[in-house]
């Protein structure tokens, strides 16, 4: 039995200990905002927050998040008690997404970075955001992060 909280709601799932959190979220809880990209933590599309820390859920067994507080893209703004977080709003203002598939993970990764480091340097941004975006939205991701950093 796996027990954890997702976006503020307690969940109790009768699933295998080694099932990756990604598939528990998507196939068991129906939370499809978190995306499957590679299955080996190489692309970041599946990034969620576990107790506030960014985690690649495709390689994180549910046994590793027992009792943890998990936030997915669906719960990002709800937790902040607003329609959109500043990061999500910046993504609209800078027209960041194209196909959009990687952007849930990208937004989760950037949200964590800015929470721990509100004014990151270029190097800090480059070194902490390693998510793959096949559409190549990186120039806008950078611009959006910088707009948030300077207003922080």
């Amino acid at each position: 039995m796996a027990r954890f909280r997702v976006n503020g709601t307690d969940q109790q799932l009768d699933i295998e200990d080694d099932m990756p959190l990604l598939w528990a979220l998507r196939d068991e809880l129906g939370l499809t905002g978190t995306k499957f990209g590679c299955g080996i933590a190489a692309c970041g599309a599946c990034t969620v927050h576990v107790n506030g820390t960014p985690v690649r859920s495709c390689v994180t067994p549910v046994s590793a998040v027992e009792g943890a507080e998990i936030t997915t893209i669906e719960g990002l703004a709800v937790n902040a008690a607003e329609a959109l977080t500043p990061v999500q709003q910046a993504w609209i203002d800078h027209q960041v997404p194209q196909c959009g598939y990687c952007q849930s993970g990208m937004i989760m990764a950037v949200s964590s970075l800015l929470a721990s480091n509100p004014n990151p340097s270029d190097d800090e941004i480059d070194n902490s955001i390693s998510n793959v975006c096949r559409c190549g939205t990186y120039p806008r991701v950078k611009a959006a992060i910088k707009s948030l950093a300077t207003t922080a």
Partner: protein
Amino acid sequence: MKMNRRRFLLGTTVVGGGLLIGYASTRPSKHRLANDANQEPYLTTWLRIDPDNTVTVIVPHSEMGQGVHTALPMMAADEMDADWSKVKVEQAPATDLFANGVLVKGFIESMGVSIPGFLQGIASSATMKVAEIMNMQITGGSSSVRFTGEVGMRSAGAAAKEMLVKAAAARLGVAENELSTSLSYVHHEASGRSLSYGELATDAAQFEPSSEPTLKTPEQFTIMGKSIPRVDIPAKVDGSAQYGIDAQPQGLLYAAIKISPVFGNKLLSVNSEAVSGRRGVVKVVELEDAVAVVADNYWRAKQALAALDIQFETSESDSVSTESIFAQYDEALKGEVNEDVELGDTPAALSSAAKVFEASYRVPYLAHAAMEPMNCTVHFHDGKCDVWTGTQDNLGIRGQVASVAEMDENDVTLHSCYLGGGFGRRLPNTTDTIVQATKIAQHFDVPVKTLWSREDDMQQDYYRPAVTSQFRAGFDAQNNLIAWQNYYIGKNEPAEAAHTPYDIPNQSIAYADSPTHIRFGAWRSVAHSQHTFFMESFVDELAHQSGQNPYQFRLSMLASKPRHAAVLRAAAEKALWNQNLPEGHAQGIALQESFGSIVAQVAEVSIDRTGQVQVHRVTCAVDCGRSVNPDTVISQAESGIIFGLTAAIYGEITIKDGKVEQSNFTDYEMIRLKDSPQIDVVTVESGAAVGGLGEPATPPIAAAVANALYILTGQRVRELPLKNYRFNPAPVEQSA
């Protein structure tokens, strides 16, 4: 209904009031079949005006990040002088209404439309041919704005406006020429009276739409040419956007699949009983060249699949390797070649030339690696079928499912989803995921989602073909380039991809076919991605070999192509060509026209401590005629550059023992944020016909980077990718 050979518009009223207007044409299409002589009109556009004054634009193309769900409605809304804040966008359903102009009764009724009497007969005799399916809703070839938008959307919008004005004139008892339109209202300035489009829509439907409505001139545009926020973006920042992979119909099961790693080899055996009784596993399905495990959760299906012992047959393809393919290409190029371009007398020019240069280039296979792995959800029930998938061609996919299931297409409903990347991968003729998903789901009466892993996606692609291209060129005694000979492997679309834009009096361009068992398909910009690297690298070699500046050398051969010359100049000027570059940096330039747009790029690069290339800045000049949504022009240029840069630096699919060796992003690496250069985009508004934008920024970048590397190192890159090189700085003196 007015009709002529080329186009017609039809307008009708909607149950509950309002106006529905459709545009059909025998549109120009490169996908058009030669025997398609009956000139059946294709409906490409619908827009609806409701009594509450909203305008709904129904877009037949798929949104895969290129902004088409915004740009096309902008074009219709501008022509009709609609208030953009009252415009809604819907994706057209995949029905043959949008395929061949035949109005399908079921769809019409579901839209709440009353069918005019004269169309009733057509509606009940709806037929569908696969050729027509393939032709219509296709999203590719950077064609949506160029054809559907410039012709269909604008005409429908302009015709609607004319009908609304007629209705207002009748209602107010004034002449049409006393009326003006703006922001979804018709105004009669003399009396100060105004009527909303919504109030007029039902009356307007009684007028015949003009088949040749008057279109605006660019200075009259109020919406086109402005950067309008994309309508699809809000759902893509909160996780609510629904991609094919997100379909969750009631009772859903999940299929994981193992396909023969050597293309074409058949399934030999599988010990299916080994996973019976495993938690969640429902069934093992054997296909001709694959095995699928169906379970109640994708991970359980995948785990069970891994526990199976699956054997495939062997074949002579098992001995094929990258080396054997390139050796086969070299042999083919020694044999008979097929004419592509013949101009002047190239053999004579080469034999009389003062100097002759030769070089041979090649590029590897490439995977698409769209972020959303291939998937398709299929549900057979009650003699019908529902399908969920993100595709570049909704109708094509519907037809494919119907064909595999031997059903009438009208019994198949395709639920349009966002695409987690297309890039040419999600076209019906290049995906077997749909066929597999259909065959697997046929075993069930509940929906089944067939989902490929990243490894499946990378190893079962329809690859951009590996190509070898050989050049010989000759200069006369005055240092003019007089002969261009280019023999390459495999002619693909677009047909002109290997044609040089430069004024060279003698040209002999030809190709040899050399098929392999590796399947191939369209990859963003298709054949331009290889040939622009070849041609623009070799032209650069010729500049250096003949002691000319690469930028000036190109310009000197563009006298007959002023648009190309202007774009090249714009890129060089914006990039400050060869001015004040930091120590250890160099610039390279490249140019290509594709899909109606001309793009020139200047790449500024250096070599890092490990001998790898660093791309610092890319300056990109674009002439797409006229920008419909300027911010989308910039974002598509950025996207195309990074896509092409990923290919140039990292992209390489290799073959060993008949199989693809790469399997995931660890061995098929992507450009990431830290490698992403500064990109500056400058648009040249030539006013020429609107060009495509999804693809044209991809072709030039590899050559631009390689040309800069030559200046830094003296090493000419004739094979990609660049990750396979260790560069040593050894700067080359450039001609002014």
